[in-house]
């Protein structure tokens, strides 16, 4: 019955999404006539919020809004319920459900039964839709600042997206389909996914991915009611920040997961699926900054709306790439062309629709305030341009092999391409990022800015010089990475200089910490790329091998057994100089359902880096292949990612506190 209840919940949710869309359309119609009059009226200044022109219709809009809000909330709750029921089916190992039988196994640990609910195509799409519904419900519940007409249009856009993806689930990817007769055991989950990372990485990443739908809907809503201005930007900013925090965490977690699980010692592979998560992040990062320009200085109106559309479009492109089966990777569960066509159709519909609306309305989005080239907003424009350029490069590199395959040419685009193209632009971006917060809003003097960036500049040059002397033969990109990271670290804390730290607003702390996080992460990437030591040996028992400052000895191999796997486990004793020895136990695991061998690396974390060990195969002379890495400061990469997300969180809290205070003051006044 659980499966039927889940399916019913999905159908109800889809019906409510349709109702929500219809109500929203009525709301937009009811408020349109005065809105048009308002847009044509020769009033001056930014039409930030509810203008007198709307006042007569306020009653209708409020009434419809009162109807739309609960519909959106119930729709979201039903989607969450459906996801909960699917998880229940996985936890109970109900093999009469096709999805469970195909992707789970009775002998699997409970955590992977739980997280396995989204370790497959249908389940992960249900999770996607669930987060979409929940995001819509959250907007309906929490959004108080948007004018009613815009909020109605926003919820309508959210419903339109949800409707398409409910249709996708119900017509081509039903997660609740039955399988009769039910098999005893099930096929099991891809062992590469059987890791605690599965419980954390997909939900966080999806919360970010799909959270961007809110920015998209806000943009559509504001375009429909012609209401793009600072108030709109202030209302949208927390939602963008929230999605961006999750996206940052999801990417960071995914990177660390790939690092330790795949056993290749790499933390980013420029795999199309990774790029699919990076592209929305780049767009969201640009949006985050442009929305601040719009909120603070009423500039970049059309651009911000455009970016909001682009950011969620990138999420949908990513979903298409991953879920359509055009790529084969550990992420691509389905190889069914009809599903790919379905997602492609949805993608075309939503992106095309939003862009068409943009083209129609861009003329009515009046130009905002102009600004000086040497100003904070000027720096943010350059930030946005560079982020867009990186986005374009990554998009081209990711789509090119697919286009080429369509023309019968097989090729792959990998790290060499992205390093050569995105790398230099990213370094330029770092330079702008260092200077930006040191430039004043509105207008600043070039000489004064030059004095403020002098110290970070000198630090950069000094570090470049020291590294060049200390590490002869270092490659250009890691060298520049180290120098720029040092300069950025100094520059990013500079805005705190001379301030009373206790009275510095939280969002300033947020900016400082997020920018510092980029510097920390960049330093980690540069160190990993410049200083990693690798040793590949066929080791005999008792024979020590050197890697970096460590000596590693294979002490023995023994068989071990887990819940649903058996493994050969090496006992490695590592020692740094004369320090205390410690043990690492890398494994080569064999899973029976489905039959697969995986390498489980063993990693020892030290303050200054990680010792990473992988066990390979035995040869006929009784030697075992060992792959050992010493990766100095590699942990900084993910520490930086966590700092970036923390900065986002502080910023979000700071904005909410500040704007809550302003709103209270306005009410009192």
């Amino acid at each position, binding site marked *: 019955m659980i499966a039927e209840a889940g399916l019913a919940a999905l159908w109800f949710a889809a019906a409510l999404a349709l109702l929500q869309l219809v109500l929203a359309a009525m709301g937009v119609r009811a408020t349109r006539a005065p809105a048009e009059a308002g847009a044509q009226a020769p009033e001056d200044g930014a039409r930030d919020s509810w203008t007198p022109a709307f006042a007569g219709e306020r009653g209708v809009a409020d009434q419809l809004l009162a109807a739309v809000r609960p519909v959106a909330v119930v729709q979201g709750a039903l989607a969450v319920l459906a996801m909960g029921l699917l998880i229940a089916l996985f936890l109970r190992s109900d093999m009469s459900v096709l999805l469970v039988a195909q992707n789970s196994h009775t002998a699997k640990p409970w955590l992977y039964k739980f997280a396995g609910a989204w370790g497959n195509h249908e389940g992960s799409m249900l999770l996607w839709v669930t987060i979409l519904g929940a995001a819509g419900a959250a907007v309906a519940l929490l959004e108080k600042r948007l004018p009613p007409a815009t909020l109605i249009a926003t919820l309508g856009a959210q419903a339109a997206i949800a409707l398409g993806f409910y249709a996708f689930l119900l017509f081509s990817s039903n997660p609740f389909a039955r399988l009769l007769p039910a098999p005893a055991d099930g096929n099991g989950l*891809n*062992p*590469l996914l059987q890791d605690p990372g599965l419980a954390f990485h997909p939900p966080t990443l999806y919360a970010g991915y799909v959270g961007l739908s809110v920015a998209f809907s806000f943009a559509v809503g504001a375009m429909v009611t012609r209401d793009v201005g600072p108030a709109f930007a202030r209302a949208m900013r927390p939602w963008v920040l929230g999605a961006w925090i999750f996206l940052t965490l999801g990417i960071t977690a995914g990177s660390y997961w790939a690092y330790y699980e795949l*056993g290749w010692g790499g933390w980013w592979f420029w795999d199309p699926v990774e790029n699919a998560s990076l592209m929305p992040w780049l767009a969201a990062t640009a949006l985050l900054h442009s929305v601040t320009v719009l909120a603070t200085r009423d500039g970049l109106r059309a*651009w911000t709306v455009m970016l909001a559309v682009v950011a969620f479009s990138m999420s949908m492109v990513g979903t298409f790439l991953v879920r359509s089966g055009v790529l*084969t990777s*550990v992420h691509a569960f389905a190889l069914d062309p009809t599903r790919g066509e379905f997602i492609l159709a949805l993608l075309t519909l939503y992106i095309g629709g939003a862009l068409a609306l943009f083209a129609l309305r861009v003329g009515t989005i009046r*130009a*905002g*305030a*102009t*600004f000086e080239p040497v100003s904070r907003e000027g720096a943010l*424009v350059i930030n946005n*341009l*560079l982020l*867009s*350029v*990186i986005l*374009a*490069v990554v998009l*081209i*590199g990711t789509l*090119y*092999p697919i286009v*080429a395959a369509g023309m019968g*040419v*097989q*090729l*792959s*685009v*990998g790290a*060499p*391409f992205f390093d*050569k*193209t995105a790398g230099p*632009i990213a370094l330029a971006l770092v330079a702008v990022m260092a200077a930006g917060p040191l430039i004043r809003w509105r207008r600043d003097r070039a000489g004064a800015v030059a004095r403020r960036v002098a110290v970070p500049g000198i630090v950069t040059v000094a570090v470049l010089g020291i590294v060049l002397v200390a590490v002869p033969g270092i490659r250009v990109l890691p060298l520049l990475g180290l120098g720029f990271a040092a300069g950025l670290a100094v520059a990013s804390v500079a805005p705190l200089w001379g301030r009373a730290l206790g009275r510095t607003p939280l969002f300033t702390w947020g900016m400082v910490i997020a920018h510092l996080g980029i510097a920390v992460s960049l330093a980690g990437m540069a160190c990993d790329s410049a200083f990693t030591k690798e040793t*590949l*040996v*066929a080791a005999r028992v008792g024979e020590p091998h050197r890697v970096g400052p460590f000596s590693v000895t294979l002490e023995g191999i023994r068989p071990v057994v887990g819940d649903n796997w058996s493994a050969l486990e090496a006992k490695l004793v590592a020692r740094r100089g004369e320090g205390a020895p410690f043990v690492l136990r890398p494994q*080569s695991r064999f899973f029976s359902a*489905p*039959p*697969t*061998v*995986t*390498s489980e690396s063993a990693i020892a974390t030290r303050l200054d880096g990680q010792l990473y060990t*992988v066990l*390979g*195969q035995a*040869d*006929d*002379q009784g*030697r075992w*292949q060992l*792959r050992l890495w010493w990766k100095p400061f590699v942990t900084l990469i993910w520490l930086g990612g966590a700092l970036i997300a923390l900065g986002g969180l502080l910023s979000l809290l700071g904005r909410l506190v500040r704007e809550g205070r302003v709103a209270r003051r306005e009410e009192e006044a």
Partner: protein
Amino acid sequence: MKAKHQRLVLVLLALVAVLGASGLALSALKDQAAFFYAPGDVARDGLPLGKHVRLGGMVEKGSIARQADGVSIAFVVTDGVAKVPVRFRGVVPDLFKEDSGVVAEGQFQSDGSFVADNLLAKHDEKYMPPQVAGAMHETKSLEP
């Protein structure tokens, strides 16, 4: 500067930036894209020397030879049309085995052999790199 002019300048700037990036990306693609070859392609069209490419096919039965250092192997990749000897130093993927699909990343040598710096094999019993599947589909003879 008037608002209209500033807008125009910004739009032009954005256009130039994105076009520049696209140009940069497309020119870099020419050099950096790793093209895919099957042994038969190489036999027919000649060796793509000095480029980082992918070679895909089946590992010929009985061809895997471990080298004395314990970490290098040599094997032969075939697509039923031609054969290419491959050398590789490193830990081979878990499901790398004879009579099974493989994609080797690396460079052709002037003697017609291939030095791989990375091997991609099947992830599990079901998964096969699409390029291997594609190459084998073309030659038919090795349809699994």
